[in-house]
Structure formats: structure tokens, C-alpha cells
């Protein structure tokens, strides 16, 4: 930068010098020309002065000549002529205006002298004429002598004046000669300078020619290398845009033109911001780019806008450099939208790979595991690095036959595909059933490059299927058992076998009826659970007073309890205990809890029933002193078809659905159902329902349907 300034200074000084040189040369030539003109003028004037000298000399003659007896009249005429000639010569001097000599004073002296000489000459001539006339008239000598004396005196004065005029002319001549000498000296000096100038000019010209030749060679080289550079800049894959320090575009290469879909002419001079998408314009500041001092220039991402207003992502690199002392910023632009799109696609694929619940395993053609996802680890227990490079055989459980694997590989090599259930083994040794889908991945030429196995753990599904199968078997058994009894007792009655014994007949009738009731109960429960599962159970919500409902339920089940030798004791509670509920469903829940308690109570047992208010809810409890719930079964209590012992079902007469139905109902009423159990001591099943609020005042007959989302307060 400093070198540049020095350079500029040199140029300035040189320019000034050249200007001064020109002025000086011009001045010199001008002065030489002036000198020349003045010299000529002064030389001419000198000649005129010499002519004047001659004229002046004549002027003295008439006065002197008359003494030699020249005729006065002739002399008078001569004087007049001489005077005329003198005046002419004298006025000629004043025409030499180029001569820069001030002679006005001398002219005045000359004119005064001329006037005096003329006046005195005329007096002398007059006196000569007077003396002549005196002499002719015979005047006395005294008189003649007096005239002669006066004439002599006047002549002397005239000579004196004449002499002063001569002196003045000599002075003028001298002045002019001096001036000529001065001019001559000046001319000599000027011409000397002129020689110098010519020498300098010749030298400069030679130097310039040499320099010019060199510059033009360099210029040619520069132009050639510039063309070369332009070709490169135009053909690089990146867009290149240069801007000034305010961000105004100075140039752009062809790639940049294509990138923005515009021509150089249309954008040069515009601000670089205009090439950006409007929202990202404020983010661009040319001041952000440093001078090229650091090792890395700044790279940032912008959204560019093409001339058709479409947008694209670009990476922008800015480097500030100084060209001829002026900062410019070179922007290198890269259209990264495709890269971003594919990165996004890859990111999406990776996200799916990482987050899907299906285990994914990718192997090479030889079957070595290349990659697995987190779901694979979650299912198999093997971390990715534990199976990398291994064969999927490590997952085999040994529970599949060799034929199974042979069949699988036949399918994969034949159709490129296999899917089905397979039992594998987890890292912890546990065997599990999974659904596996294997596909061969082929390259463009149809060659298998990889195998992809997608799997999901269906052991839970299998377990629930097993549970369902078990349930169907159970239900079928439960339905068959009472039917067997009904059918059997009716057959015996029908055959008359029991006719002889009225007690036996009565017994058979009782069996048939009891089992019919059991069938009805079972069918009711199965329907209930089916409704709950399909979420079609409708609730009619009304204000229900627990002080009426709970004792009512106890009363209704007292008879049933008596069959088991069990007593139900109702504990007193508050009169006003309102909840928002479907009365029939709530009754169903209570009946379930009571019949469970009855079935699990020892003979002569007592069941305690209460309802109490706790904070914002009412808790209804049913407590028995039966064997309680084994620790291992506590998590299963509310699951469908669950009973502590599957084979316990018939003895207890239940379907295994009661508690799951009860839980579903209470959940939908916005409540909570639970239990406490001390095995061998007591078991308490309870449910909590929110205390009915004033603003829930439900008009008689108003119905609210509760969906699976739970209870919503009625609109006011």
C-alpha cells in the first residue's frame, strides 16, 4: 500500500515537472520571439535616431549660414523645411513601440530644444534682416552694431540649445545601444536554454521510446495472460463474483451468470444483496470479510435467488484483497442445493434407520454384518460393534431345523427375498420369535451387493396370540362345562332313570338351572369385554349418590354371599356422596368386586364395604380376609382373562374378565381402581371417583357420552 502511494507521488511529481517544463519552454520561446522583435525594432529605431541627428544638424544651419550673407528669405524657407523634416524624423521614433525603452523625457527635452532652436534661429534671421535693412537704409553703425551684437548673442544661445539637443540625441543613441546589448545577451541566454531544452527533450523522447517499448511488451504479455485468466475464471465450477467494499458487483464469471440465470451486464453495479433471497439479504455485509491475512477466508451459507425468483442454497466464501490500493472482495459461490437435498435425503434415511422400531441388519454379499441399527440392538441385545463382521448365524437359536435354513437360502438365492417367522436367540440367551424380511440388494448390473434384513420382535404378539388362544380354549371350556351339565342332567331326567327318586330329579333340575345361569353370566361378560374392546360402550352419566348405590349393591349380593357362607357388612357413610357416573355400570363394578371378594373369602368370612371422602374424590372399598394376591400376580390382576391360577377359574365360577371390565369402566369415569393386599390377612379392592361438583349439575335425562378419552365435564 505504501509502495503504491509512493508510486502515485512519483507520477504526480513527474506530471508537475513536465507541466513546468512545458510552461518554461513556452515562456522561453515567447521571450526569445519578443527579444527578437524588440531587437529589430531597437535597431530600426537606432537608424531613425541617426537620421534625426542629421535632421537636427540641419536645424542649426540657417541661423549660422545667414551670417555668411546668405539671403534671409532663403534661410527662412530652409529653416521651415528643416523644421518640418526634423519633426517628421522625431515623430518616427514614437512608432517603435516594441522597444522597451522609456524615452518620453528625452522626447520632451528634444522638443523643447527644437522649439528654442527654432525661436532663436528665427530671431537671428529677423535680426539679420533688420541689420540688412538698416544697412541699406544707411542707418548708423551703432544701430547696426547693436543689431549685430544682439544677433551674435542670440546665435550663441541658439548654439547652446542646439548643443543640448545634440546631447539628448547622443543619450538616446547610447540608451538604444545599451538596450541592444542587453537584448543580445538575453537572446544568447535564451538560445542556450533552448539548446538545453532540445537536448533534454531528445533524451526524454529516447527514454520514453525505450520505456514505451518495454511497457508495450509487458502489456501484450499482460493482455495475453489476462485472456488466459479470464478463460479459467469463466470455466471454473464455482461462481466468482467480485464486489467493491459496499458490496456493489464489479464482475462475475460465467458460472455465476448461470447460477443466477442472469447476464453480467444486468447485474454489474447492482448490490450483491440483490442476488440473495429477500430474507437473507440483511445477513450479507461486505464488512464481514477480512483482508486476506488469515489462512482461512470466511465461508457462510446464503439462500440465493435466480432471476426467475427461484431459490437455491449456496456456500459463499469471501476474500478481501486490495487491487491498486482499492479493496475488492472476491466471492466464490457454490450451489449446494443438490448437495443439501441429497444430504437431507441421506439424513432422513439415517433418521429412519436410527429411529425405526424395526431392527435392520445389512450384510455384504458373503453375509458378514456391515451395519445394524439401534432397534436391532434393542431386539437382539447385541450392540452394533459386537456383531460387525460377524455372520448372522450368531443369532440362531438352534430351535429351527436345518431344512428351515436351507429353504430360506434357496428362496433368497432364487427370488432375492425371504420372509417369515423365525426363532432367534438374544444375547442374554433368551429365545424369541421375530418376523424377518430378507432382501438382496443388487447393483445396476443385477449383481447382489448386500443383503438387508428387517426384523421385528413378535414375541409379545405371539404371547398375546397365545393368550388369546388360551382364552378361546378357556371360553370354549367354560361354555362347554355348563352345557355338559345341562345336557347331562336333562338326558338323565328325560330317560326316566331318576324318576324313582324325587330328590335326584330335583337335584338334576337344580344343576340344569344353575348351569344355565352360569352360561348367561359368562355370555354377558364376554359381550361386555367385546364392547369395551371395540370402545362402543355407551355411558349415561348422572349424579349418583353412593349412599344409595353402595348399600343397594351390598343388599343385592347378600344372598349370593350367603351361598358361600360369607357375610357382607356395610359401613355407615355420609348421606350426600355424589359422583358423576353411569349408575348401571357402577353397579356392575361393585357387583364384580363383591363377587370376587365372596369367591375368595373363607367360609364364615366377612366382607367390609365402605365409601369415604378423600380430598377431591370418593373412595369405595371392598375388603375381604381371603388368601390375598400372590406377589407374582399383582401386575396381572387387571389384565383380561387373568386369574392367579388359570385352573382356579371353574371353582370360583368366574370368567377372568370381571376386573378388567371394572377397570375399563372406572377409567372411563375419570377414576382410578386399585388394591392393597396382605396375603393371608386381608385384601382390599377400591375405586376412586371425583367428588361431584356443583357446576356439574346435570339435568334429569341429560346424557353424556364418555369416550375412551375419559370424562369431560358437562357444558354449563
Amino acid at each position, binding site marked *: 500500500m505504501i509502495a503504491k502511494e509512493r508510486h502515485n507521488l512519483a507520477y504526480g511529481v513527474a506530471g508537475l515537472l513536465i507541466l513546468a517544463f512545458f510552461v518554461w519552454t513556452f515562456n522561453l520561446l515567447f521571450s526569445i520571439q519578443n527579444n527578437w522583435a524588440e531587437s529589430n525594432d531597437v535597431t530600426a529605431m537606432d537608424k531613425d535616431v541617426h537620421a534625426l541627428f542629421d535632421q537636427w544638424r540641419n536645424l542649426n544651419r540657417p541661423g549660422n549660414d545667414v551670417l555668411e550673407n546668405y539671403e534671409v528669405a532663403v534661410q527662412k524657407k530652409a529653416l521651415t523645411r528643416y523644421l518640418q523634416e526634423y519633426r517628421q524624423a522625431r515623430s518616427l521614433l514614437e512608432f517603435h513601440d516594441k522597444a522597451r525603452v522609456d524615452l518620453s523625457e528625452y522626447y520632451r527635452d528634444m522638443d523643447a530644444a527644437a522649439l528654442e532652436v527654432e525661436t532663436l534661429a528665427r530671431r537671428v534671421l529677423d535680426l539679420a534682416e533688420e541689420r540688412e535693412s538698416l544697412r541699406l537704409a544707411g542707418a548708423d553703425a551703432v544701430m547696426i552694431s547693436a543689431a549685430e551684437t544682439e544677433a551674435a548673442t542670440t546665435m550663441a544661445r541658439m548654439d547652446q540649445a542646439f548643443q543640448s539637443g545634440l546631447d539628448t540625441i547622443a543619450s538616446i543613441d547610447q540608451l538604444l545601444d545599451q538596450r541592444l546589448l542587453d537584448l543580445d545577451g538575453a537572446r544568447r541566454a535564451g538560445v542556450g536554454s533552448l539548446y538545453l531544452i532540445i537536448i533534454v527533450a531528445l533524451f526524454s523522447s529516447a527514454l520514453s521510446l525505450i520505456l514505451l517499448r518495454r511497457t508495450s511488451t509487458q502489456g501484450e504479455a499482460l493482455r495475453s495472460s489476462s485472456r488466459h485468466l479470464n478463460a479459467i475464471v469463466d470455466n471454473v465450477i464455482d461462481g466468482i463474483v467480485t464486489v467493491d467494499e459496499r458490496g456493489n458487483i464489479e464482475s462475475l464469471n460465467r458460472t455465476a451468470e448461470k447460477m443466477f440465470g442472469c447476464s453480467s451486464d444486468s447485474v454489474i453495479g447492482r448490490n450483491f444483496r440483490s442476488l440473495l433471497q429477500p430474507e437473507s439479504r440483511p445477513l450479507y455485509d461486505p464488512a464481514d470479510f477480512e483482508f486476506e491475512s488469515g489462512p482461512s477466508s470466511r465461508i457462510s451459507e446464503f439462500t440465493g435467488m435466480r432471476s426467475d425468483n427461484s431459490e437455491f442454497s449456496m456456500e459463499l466464501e469471501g476474500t478481501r484483497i486490495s487491487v491498486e490500493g482499492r479493496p475488492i472482495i472476491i466471492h466464490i459461490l457454490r450451489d449446494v442445493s443438490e448437495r443439501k437435498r441429497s444430504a437431507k435425503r441421506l439424513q432422513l434415511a439415517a433418521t429412519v434407520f436410527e429411529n425405526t422400531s424395526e431392527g435392520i441388519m445389512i450384510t455384504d454379499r458373503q453375509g458378514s454384518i456391515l451395519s445394524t441399527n439401534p432397534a436391532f440392538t434393542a431386539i437382539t441385545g447385541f450392540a452394533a460393534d459386537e456383531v460387525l463382521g460377524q455372520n448372522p448365524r450368531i443369532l440362531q437359536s438352534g430351535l429351527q431345523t436345518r431344512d428351515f435354513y436351507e429353504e430360506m437360502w434357496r428362496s433368497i438365492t432364487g427370488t432375492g427375498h425371504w420372509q417369515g417367522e423365525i426363532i432367534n436367540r438374544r444375547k442374554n440367551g433368551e429365545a424369541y420369535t421375530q418376523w424377518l424380511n430378507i432382501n438382496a440388494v443388487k447393483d445396476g448390473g443385477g449383481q447382489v451387493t448386500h443383503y438387508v434384513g428387517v426384523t421385528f420382535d413378535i414375541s409379545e404378539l405371539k404371547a398375546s396370540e397365545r393368550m388369546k388362544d388360551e382364552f378361546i380354549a378357556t371360553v370354549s371350556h367354560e361354555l*362347554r362345562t355348563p352345557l355338559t351339565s345341562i345336557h*347331562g*342332567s336333562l*338326558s*338323565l331326567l328325560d330317560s326316566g*332313570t331318576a324318576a324313582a327318586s324325587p330328590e335326584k330329579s330335583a337335584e338334576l333340575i337344580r*344343576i340344569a338351572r344353575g*348351569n344355565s345361569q352360569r352360561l348367561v353370566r359368562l355370555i354377558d361378560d364376554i359381550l361386555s369385554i367385546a364392547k369395551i374392546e371395540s370402545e362402543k360402550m355407551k355411558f349415561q352419566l348422572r349424579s349418583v349418590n353412593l349412599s344409595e348405590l353402595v348399600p343397594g349393591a351390598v343388599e343385592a349380593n347378600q344372598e349370593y354371599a350367603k351361598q358361600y357362607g360369607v357375610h357382607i357388612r356395610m359401613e355407615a357413610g355420609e348421606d350426600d356422596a355424589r359422583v358423576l357416573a353411569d349408575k348401571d355400570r357402577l353397579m356392575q363394578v361393585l357387583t364384580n368386586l363383591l363377587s370376587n371378594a365372596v369367591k375368595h373369602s373363607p367360609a364364615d368370612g366377612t366382607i367390609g364395604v365402605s365409601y369415604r371422602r378423600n380430598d377431591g374424590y370418593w373412595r369405595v372399598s371392598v375388603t375381604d380376609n381371603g388368601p390375598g394376591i400372590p406377589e407374582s400376580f399383582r401386575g396381572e390382576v387387571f389384565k383380561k382373562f387373568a386369574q392367579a391360577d388359570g385352573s382356579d377359574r*371353574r*371353582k370360583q365360577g368366574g370368567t377372568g374378565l370381571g376386573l378388567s371390565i371394572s377397570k375399563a369402566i372406572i377409567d372411563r369415569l375419570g377414576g382410578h381402581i386399585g388394591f392393597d393386599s396382605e396375603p393371608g390377612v386381608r385384601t382390599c379392592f377400591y375405586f376412586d371417583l371425583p367428588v361431584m361438583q356443583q357446576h356439574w349439575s346435570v339435568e334429569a335425562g341429560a346424557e353424556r357420552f364418555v369416550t375412551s378419552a375419559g370424562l369431560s365435564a358437562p357444558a354449563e
Partner: protein
Amino acid sequence: MTGDDTLHRILYVEDDADIRKIVSMSLEMVGSYTVASCGSCAEALQVVDDFGPELLLLDVMMPDVDGPATLRELRKRTSAENAPAVFITAKVQAGDMAQYRRLGVYDVIVKPFDPMVLPERVGQIWQQYRSGAYDHAG
């Protein structure tokens, strides 16, 4: 034992009281057998030695101790170690049948049964057993 090929004493174990009653009535009144009907394995073990059953008729699905387990317990008693065992059950899938065979069960009567036909069916099984037993012995 006596040389008499007729079946007399049947030890019957069934947890469902109603079915127990119907089967007992059927076997006693229609088939004229002597039936010791028990509600559980424990009850059966109490009476088996005194009763001396010629045939064991067992339900399969019972709480606590099921049919197969009851059979194993009864086989430990000399009074019941040789009596043919017949399961009376609704569980008659292929897998179940294979399991019964492994347990040494002689035959299976499928529920639901007709109480008027049941005694005859038991009689047939007995006859088959006797002839087979003699064939086997001979």
C-alpha cells in the same frame, strides 16, 4: 383277580360338582357300577386304598392338582398302580392326546358326553382293556 371280567369299581375324580353328580348318577343308575366320586386328588388319595378301583376315570383340568398329576399320585399306590386310566375331558387336541399317551392313559372320553351312553362307553373300554391285557399276558 376274581376271574370275573365285569367292571365293578370306578374311581372318579372331577372338580366340578355338577358334572361329578351327573357322571356318578349315570354310571351308578344307568351302568350299575360302583363309583367312588372325588372332588380332588387329595380326596381320591384318601379313599383309593379302601376302595380298590378297577378303573380310574379322571378329569384333566382341575385346580391345584390336575388330572395327569392326580394319575401320577394314584400310581404310587399299589391299590391303583395297575388299574387302566381313562381321562374324561374336552381337551382333546392332537398335542394333548400325545401327552396322555405318554402318561400311560388307556383311553380318553370326550366331553361333552351323553350320560345315557357313557356307561356303555366305559364298559367297551374295559372289555378292550381286558382282552388286550390277556393278549399282552398271553
